[in-house]
């Protein structure tokens, strides 16, 4: 395809190409930097495993220990709680907006969940702090409401809109012809929904779940305000905890550059980043499959 050639054009192409290289170079550097900082020397790599599995985080004792097991166990528990709540609810909300609600109500519901996606994390943390914590305190008769459960519940509300949005777009992608072909067998709408529509949307629902998972893993402030920031390895959902993200946010300011604690925080960051990137890789694959189906 012959474009009209022009000298400025070449200059501009070079310029924008350089910018692309610069931007992607910096971003690659970001990933490399985080991973590298968690073990500055290659020999430190061996320390990574004991650090990840170390049960005790106590930088001030002699000798100090920097195990971050409590952090990823907290992350795991909070994420599990939030997915357990948000995935079924998100699917049901999607079914509501696409299949059950009258048009008006469905539009309202969509708008409302979009609002949910726009509320910033710190506000969720705050609202959870003043409403959820007292409720959990009285409900479970605890001295303080800060628990992994509280963090998990608020996190569920935060990821709900993402799961609902992707689930409803995949429900919408099941064609009216397919639905009619199902109904033409003399079965009720619910049967078609269960056996055809939901089944066909499974990839999409799963993709929504992975996206929600990635969001949940990376959330910082809301969980930090609600989980209680305790460095013991949590044993139940009513324990306090400190997920990876909170660990970083809490300790980074105090950590001397290059100190063991600094490296330990970067290990936490690197773990988190690698996890989120792998989840996104999965999401990317699923999304590809989704567009083939749709």
């Amino acid at each position, binding site marked *: 395809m012959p*474009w*009209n050639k*022009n000298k400025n*054009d070449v200059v*501009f*192409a070079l310029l*924008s*190409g350089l*910018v*692309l290289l*610069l*931007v992607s170079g910096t*971003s*690659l550097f*970001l990933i490399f930097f*985080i991973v590298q900082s968690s073990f500055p020397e290659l020999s430190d790599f061996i320390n990574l495993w004991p650090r990840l599995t170390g049960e005790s985080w106590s930088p001030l004792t002699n000798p100090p220990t920097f195990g971050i097991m409590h952090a990823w166990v907290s992350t795991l528990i909070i994420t599990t709680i939030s997915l357990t709540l948000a995935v079924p*609810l998100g699917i*049901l*909300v999607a079914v*509501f*907006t696409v*299949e*059950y*609600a009258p048009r008006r*109500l469905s539009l*309202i*519901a969509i708008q*409302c*969940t*979009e609002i*949910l996606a*726009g*509320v*910033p*994390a*710190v*506000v*969720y943390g*705050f609202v959870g*702090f003043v*409403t959820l914590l007292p409720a959990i305190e009285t409900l479970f008769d605890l001295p303080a409401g800060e628990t992994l459960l509280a963090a998990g519940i608020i996190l569920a*509300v935060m990821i*709900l809109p993402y799961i609902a949005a992707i689930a409803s777009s995949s429900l919408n992608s099941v064609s009216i012809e397919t639905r009619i072909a199902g109904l033409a067998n003399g079965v009720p709408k*619910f049967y078609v929904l269960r056996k055809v529509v939901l089944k066909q949307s499974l990839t999409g629902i799963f993709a929504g779940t992975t996206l929600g998972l*990635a969001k949940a*893993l*990376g*959330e910082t*402030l809301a969980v930090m305000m609600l989980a209680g920031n305790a460095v013991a390895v949590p044993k139940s959902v009513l324990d306090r905890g400190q997920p990876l*993200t909170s660990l*970083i*946010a809490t300790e980074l*300011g105090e950590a001397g550059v290059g100190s063991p604690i600094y490296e330990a925080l970067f290990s936490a*960051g690197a773990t*988190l*980043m690698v996890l*989120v*990137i792998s989840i*996104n890789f999965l999401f*990317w694959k699923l999304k590809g499959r989704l567009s083939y189906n749709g």
Partner: protein
Amino acid sequence: MVDKTREVRANQRLITERCFAVLVWIAGILGIFIPLYIITFITINGAPILSWAFLTLPPAGFPLGTGGGIGPAILGSLALITIGLSFSAPLSILAAIFSSQYCTSHNFLVFVRFFAEVLASVPSIIYGLFGYALLVVFFDLKISLLAGGITIAFMMTPVIFVGTHESFNLANKELQQAAISLGVSRLFYIRKVLLPKTLPSILTVIVLASMNAMGSAAPILLTGAIVNSIGEIRLDLPVMSLPSHIFYLVGEAVSFDHAFGTALVLVGVLIFGNMGVGWLKWRYIKNDG
């Protein structure tokens, strides 16, 4: 006998179906109720404290934040976003132009897109970690507006890149062939056709990225925020920001009233931004049709 079991089955079916419908409606009502509850809750508790003074004065009182207002936090948030945008918007739009207009390698494009989408989903705390280590410590920018703004720019870049790249590609499909057949140069096409045509979606993406950045406190806490400031905006000084101010007020149990007021302002700005984006999209569709 046969008829009886049939009836029982039919009944069971009806019950399952009804139960499911009830569940769906409960979920739907929750989906409407939770957001409305959060918004009303913040509005009712935050509205009483809102005043011109609250919006403009610096925090005061003891402990700090029990009196005064959030003027510096508003200014700080705006300054952070301005700096973030002035780095990220031109760079990511140029990069998107290159990938949509000049780049011919399909594999490279797929890689860049995937990479950008991954970066867009990397948790903000990771950007905070990076910004802290690189900007605050290594380049010795200290905790400052500049360090915070650049960290924000890092966060915004992949988002703006992906969004603009997408709309450039869409516009290309429609317009590129026509432009080629008119014999114009590529640069002319980019300046006079592509950019004006995609302006609404570029703006949409920029607003979305800004709102996203405005709400995220974690990276700013690590790189650019301070609990109190008289409102002086200087690149080498830290600033207050709306989300980090809420975090401070709640975390140190300073003043819930002020936290409600600040949250109302923040949420108000974000919802307003959302509506703005909705309006832009609507206009875009209308112009197209």
